[in-house]
């Protein structure tokens, strides 16, 4: 029996080729592109000047002037999000058109760049999603996906997953990115920009950057019909893959891209023969366009020349994190209207052995569209959109038991689980201390010496988790091992190095740093080093990223997309200068989480990886799991309210809670909620051991909960005298627990955005 059909019922878009879906579609079908020279004098330093810009008045006419003033990213996103919500009619609550409950209405946003707020400083990656959610009152699943130029398409796929798991009745899925000077300089430095309007698939002499936002409102077909709205298209399936090849260049064989398309078609229950039209990535760079032609030939074989494929990037430019969503909107409209948009700027004299729909839109029967995106970091995504079906009986999405079978913490407390356990047992505290990778290279030296610090940490953590799980898989099996990377802010070293180089001379950007500025670069480096080519994605929800990544891993296992998923979380801040030299011990270990004296956490760097495996796979190979994942829950929203909501895991009565406290006054909210709901549990937090390492601290909470379940060890809150809630008896004050825990709960928190809870049980 089929899974519950998930359909698109609303579209929103603002980009250089239109301020709403109607205008966008008119321009696509009449071949009127939106690329133009940038007039901003700052860009005069570059030879290449064409880009796809959104006129300010298009935004201003659709948003009140004061709304998110100074935050162009949020304003673009709000325009498109409201259009989609309006078309879907989900704001018009009433007996016939019941709006989804706020807790079951989510947002999954794709974004490639860290973007500045009104003061010019980088905002947290998830900030734009928080703004849209807050404005539209969405308190359901909230995910920021940052697989660079594949993020928009990836967001649509993840939204489908959230509906299939039953966590949401509606999800706003899309992407946004503004045109940023630094990014422009980076692409110019890579010699990737065309000096005129780009000409994908023919001249292929470079790309143009663009900006914009696009959203699709996804909901189950049955609920859409019950609300009396018209389904526009079914999101029939999606596929992710990793090239495991190079930081910026696509695998020239097209293997990675082809694998994403094949996975998407398999999920949709379709074959290449069912595909009528392919919306290509078509950036216009020689490497991309050549690789895409190979993907077409690999997937469609003899039929490749008869499957029309076009790129709309010569209309709108490359909108990076928005591109996949912009193209998904175009694909839905192509299905609706039975028209394939053209590749404009196509050189009619070019010899092409594929059908690129040159320069003129083509009316044709279209029931199935494949929309592809390929990104830096070797991340590929393919979406399958199909003409909506009539409602069919459906079965719930399958659930499978999953276990955590390997731990790889790399923090100031130790490199590997053995060192970490020893540090916990010894009652050591290492907040703010830099992890040590002395004595071992974790990747081929030819790669290792060019890697930034965050990639080295993440690769070390991944390899150690892999070794801890005692996984020995042949090369072929690695093609299906998935990787989910979780990070708050990616590489501070590369971002800083790149920004500094631009400030000095925009025409001499630090290109190696630029390739590592994208948030998924580290995940890509892990895939490349370990040779993992399964589904891959990168999630950026601050310190809650790791539990959201675990959710994503479980969904991959449930859906049969992977038997083994490596979850890796990493973040960095400059190490604390030690008072007497690098090797001197710290006298001040920072505030004790949940302590009344806590004012501000000690920030640090670290990477924590864990292996998530289907219980069947682990048992079949004789693995020794730490714990079974009994349940997860996330709650989005501001303030203290989501804390209690995140703890509402059915049947949870853990003996231990590894909390998200880091040494803030608001740690008390969490402690009070835990003690109220789980009075029998002892409370601790991994920040006591390693400080606040953002996503890595969230992952450490999960890892240490797993350790407590199997080995009965947990970090003690030594020095806790006056807790913010309850008394000392409710906290872990010595590392040896009474024994292995039957169950333990790990918490994560991106404050005022999303909180997570992961329940682990003994196997």
């Amino acid at each position, binding site marked *: 029996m089929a899974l519950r059909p998930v359909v698109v019922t609303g579209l929103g878009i603002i980009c250089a080729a239109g301020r709403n879906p109607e205008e966008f579609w008119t321009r696509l079908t009449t071949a009127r592109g939106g690329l133009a020279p940038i007039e901003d004098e700052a860009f005069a330093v570059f030879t290449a000047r064409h880009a796809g810009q959104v006129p300010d008045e298009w935004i201003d006419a659709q948003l009140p002037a004061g709304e998110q003033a100074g935050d162009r990213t949020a304003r673009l996103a709000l325009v498109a999000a409201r259009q989609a919500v309006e078309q879907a009619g989900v704001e018009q609550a009433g007996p016939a058109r019941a709006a989804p409950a706020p807790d079951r209405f989510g947002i999954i946003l794709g974004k490639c760049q860290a973007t500045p707020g009104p003061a010019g400083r980088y905002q947290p990656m998830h900030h734009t999603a928080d703004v849209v959610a807050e404005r539209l009152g969405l308190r359901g699943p909230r995910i920021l996906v940052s697989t660079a130029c594949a993020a928009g398409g990836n967001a649509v796929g993840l939204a489908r997953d959230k509906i299939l798991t039953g966590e949401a009745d509606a999800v706003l899925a899309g992407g946004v990115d503004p045109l940023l000077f630094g990014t422009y300089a980076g692409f110019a430095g890579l010699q990737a920009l065309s000096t005129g309007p780009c000409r994908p698939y023919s001249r292929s002499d470079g790309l143009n950057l663009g900006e914009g936002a696009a959203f699709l409102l996804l909901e189950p077909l049955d609920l859409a019909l019950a609300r009396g709205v018209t389904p526009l298209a079914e999101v029939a399936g999606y596929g992710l893959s990793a090239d495991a090849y190079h930081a910026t260049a696509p695998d020239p*064989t097209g293997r990675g891209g082809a694998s994403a398309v094949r996975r998407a078609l398999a999920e949709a229950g379709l074959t290449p023969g069912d595909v009528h039209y392919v919306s290509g990535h078509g950036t216009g760079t020689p490497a991309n366009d050549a690789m895409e032609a190979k993907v077409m030939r690999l997937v469609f074989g003899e039929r490749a020349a008869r499957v029309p494929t076009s790129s709309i990037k010569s209309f709108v430019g490359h909108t990076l994190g928005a591109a996949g969503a912009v193209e998904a909107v175009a694909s839905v409209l192509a299905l609706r209207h039975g028209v394939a948009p053209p590749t404009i700027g196509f050189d009619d004299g070019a010899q092409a052995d594929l059908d690129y729909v040159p320069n003129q839109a083509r009316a044709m029967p279209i029931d199935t569209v494949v929309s592809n995106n390929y990104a830096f970091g070797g991340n590929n995504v393919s979406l399958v959109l199909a003409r909506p079906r009539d409602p069919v009986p459906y079965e719930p999405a399958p659930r499978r038991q999953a276990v955590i079978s390997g731990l790889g913490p790399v923090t100031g407390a130790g490199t590997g689980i053995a060192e970490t356990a020893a540090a916990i047992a010894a009652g050591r505290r290492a907040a703010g201390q830099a992890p040590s990778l002395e004595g071992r*290279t974790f990747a081929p030296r030819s790669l290792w010496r060019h890697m930034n610090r965050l990639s080295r940490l993440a690769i070390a953590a991944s390899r150690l988790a892999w070794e801890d799980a005692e996984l020995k898989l042949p090369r072929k099996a690695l093609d299906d091992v998935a990787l989910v990377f979780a990070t708050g802010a990616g590489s501070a070293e590369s971002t800083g190095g790149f920004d500094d180089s631009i400030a000095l001379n925009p025409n001499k950007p630090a290109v190696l740093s630029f390739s590592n500025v994208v948030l998924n670069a580290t995940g890509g480096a892990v895939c490349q080093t370990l040779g993992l080519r399964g589904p891959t994605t990168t999630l950026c929800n601050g310190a809650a990223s790791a539990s959201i990544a675990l959710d994503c891993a479980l969904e991959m296992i449930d859906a049969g997309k992977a038997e083994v998923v490596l979850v890796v979380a990493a973040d960095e801040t400059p190490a604390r200068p030690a008072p007497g030299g690098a090797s001197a011990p710290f006298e001040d270990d920072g505030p004790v989480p949940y302590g009344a004296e806590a004012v501000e956490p000690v920030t640090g760097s670290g990477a924590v990886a864990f292996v998530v495996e289907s219980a069947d796979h682990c048992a079949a190979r004789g693995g020794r799991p730490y714990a079974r994942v009994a349940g997860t829950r996330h709650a989005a929203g501001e303030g203290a309210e989501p804390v209690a909501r995140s703890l509402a895991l059915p049947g949870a009565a853990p003996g231990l809670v590894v909390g998200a406290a880091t040494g803030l006054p608001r740690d008390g909210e969490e402690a009070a909620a835990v003690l109220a709901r789980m009075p029998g549990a002892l409370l601790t937090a991994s920040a006591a051991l390693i400080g606040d390492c953002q996503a890595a601290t969230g992952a450490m909470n999960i890892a240490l909960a797993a350790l407590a379940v199997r080995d009965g060890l947990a970090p003690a809150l030594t020095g806790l005298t006056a807790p913010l809630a309850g008394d000392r008896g409710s906290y872990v004050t010595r590392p040896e627990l009474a024994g292995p825990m039957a169950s333990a709960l790990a918490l994560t928190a991106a404050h005022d955005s999303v909180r997570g809870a992961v329940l682990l049980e003994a196997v």
Partner: protein
Amino acid sequence: MASVLASLHPEDTVYGDVGDATVPLRFSSFPQEYQVLRERAAVLDLGGHRLIEITGPAAVDFAQRVLARDVEYLTSDRCMMSLVLDESGQVVDQVVAFGREEGLLLESSCGAGARLLDHLLAHAEEGAEIADRSADLTVIGLEGPYAWGVVGRLIDGELASLPFESVVDTTWNGVDIVFARTGYTGEYGYQMIVPRQAAPGLWAGALEHAQAAGQEALELAMLEVRQPIPRHEATPGASVIEIGANWLVDITKDDFVGRAAVLEAFETGGGLRTVGFTGCEGVPAPGTRVLAGGQDVGEVVYAVQSAGLGATLGLARVDPELAAAGLGLTVGGVDVTTLTSPYIVPKSWSIPII
């Protein structure tokens, strides 16, 4: 060691002894074979390359110790070229190391397999099994600007655009083979490791789409892009720096046989350097003195007549300050000019794989 393919080669094939191997030097006409390699696609009988397998729990540690480059994480879909050195830093051989699920497979250079095997056995460690697989495996190469097209017609077009030094376990005609993107001449290059009994079939199949080229054409094309040929260049006493094979060692590795000697050579910076030259009439013999302004500054390593340049092409080992392009030197009393490598531009550099 004779090639398993010898019975298939034309009767008038000219063979020669290269180290411990007897290999086809040319099948018909050297200039024509060279032209095929540089202009179209050549099939190479690499039966003179010995295959040595290292397996067992200590396989990777052993390989890491005997190979000068870093193979700790050489996965079964990668291969790389590396020097094998003795304790004094002298070149034992230059191998292609293939990562395998159960260890590594080393491919010797032409005719150097026996010496390599002896060296490995002399350094054998418990837990690392060393096995000569040449009795059941052989190597066939493809090289040329359109070699990728041959791959498509012979096996699978998907393999043609594999990244450099990628390895795939695949099948040809139902036979398991190891397929690798490699390259010795600057042209698109591939190697197929194939069971000996299936080799004649694969050779014949390849000949339907390409022409055979012998060792002479291959070695000339290698020299033209400064691909090291150890039997000509690893002269007794020369350090890896003097040979110009620095890129085939990795001194950031903690340890490998010969590391101390290489490190010393790096640190002292002494000795000569190797540079290409052209210009003189005829082919000077190895050891011919090289003069600069009347001063003896070094000697000829070896030289040949280059079809690509239409002139003499050689390598000279000279004082470091003279190992630069565009200088006038004298070889055997005749003026020559030093060159920067590659000495010819391979056609493959301007031909995309479609």
